[in-house]
């Protein structure tokens, strides 16, 4: 698996792309499983930090894939991973986008949309746990994760402030 990281990256993210029914954040545990546990491309902590850097940068959630690709195989890896994650579903979105409106009132459309929501919720919650485990260095980091979740759930504060506060607490060695 380590002999051809580019090919493995492409194959991995092509698969993940088609499984990403709840968006990029719903498939983080699957990325973690393959990138950390199977391929050994990065450690648990590196995975959580890669996600954090991608969140701290502007842009869509899919940027975490770009950064994983870059970590594994440099610029080519970044481009290949991002293209593999986006291309198949972009083609699908293009094709379905043309006919979607026609099925506005279709029963199967409402059923499918509604049925995917609870699965997505479970998957994103699982992503949160996997990331929290990778980020945990002790009681301090764990408390920070819970505080961040609480603040962002109960207030309308921009996530950027919470990320900045987390980074500052880390830099000051308060966690």
């Amino acid at each position, binding site marked *: 698996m380590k002999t051809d990281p580019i090919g493995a990256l492409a194959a991995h993210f092509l698969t993940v792309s088609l499984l990403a029914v709840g968006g990029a954040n719903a498939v983080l545990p699957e990325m973690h499983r393959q990138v950390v546990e199977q391929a050994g491309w990065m450690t648990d902590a590196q995975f*959580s930090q890669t996600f954090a850097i991608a969140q701290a940068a502007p842009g869509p959630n899919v940027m975490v894939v770009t950064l994983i690709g870059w970590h594994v195989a440099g610029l080519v890896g970044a481009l290949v991973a991002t293209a593999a994650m986006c291309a198949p579903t972009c083609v699908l979105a293009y094709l379905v986008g043309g006919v979607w409106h026609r099925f506005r009132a279709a029963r199967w459309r409402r059923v499918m949309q509604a049925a995917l929501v609870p699965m997505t919720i479970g998957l994103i919650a699982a992503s949160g746990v996997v990331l929290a485990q990778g980020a945990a260095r002790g009681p301090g980091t764990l408390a920070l994760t819970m505080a961040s979740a609480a603040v962002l759930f109960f207030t309308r504060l921009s996530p950027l402030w919470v990320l900045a506060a987390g980074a500052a607490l880390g830099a000051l060695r308060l966690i």
Partner: protein
Amino acid sequence: MIYAGRADALRGPLMSASPTDAVPPGSVPPPRESTQPQPGLWDLFVGFLSVAVVAFGGVLPIARRAVVERYRWVSAEEFTELVGLAQFLPGPNIVNLSVVIGGRFRGPAGALAAVLGLTLVPMAIVIGLGVLFARYADIAGVADTLAGLAAAAAGLVIATAARMAEPLWKRPRPEPIAIAAAAFLAIAVAGWPLLPVMLTLAPVSLALFWWRLT
């Protein structure tokens, strides 16, 4: 050419009224007002670029403000409809959304322009950040900063899930809660691969909702 019909229809009532230019029935897009702007490839690229560079931890509200309120490319109802589509399809939601909006106006080239606008500059920024953090990773302060950032970012994802789950406990019903819990346990606790989990849960969820919604 799925979107050819839309382009013709936008040109004016005279053209779309002529029988030779008739749009195939069924693929007729929702009616638009004649004042509807017609963004070119560059407009689409710049429009989605302007969304991407200010989007931190949640692109959707910013995208909505841009494409509905600032550029008026789609109406508020259409936007909600398109978000439903983007979330229904696999893949990054906001990327799917940009493909559909870009494609609607300019076909495949428009879809590509929108996606590149959304991703190119953020890719450069995120790689730049990655290079910086990797170069100074040995400095203890940098490692500590990253640890704090990672802990806070994990909380962000947990909050997202909790927000999405609000309807589940405001109007509790056993089926969706069971599906969400099963997905969570299978992935986070058991650590099973996603493919078999989805192939099992998706049909169950579909069957439950089919029975409930019909």
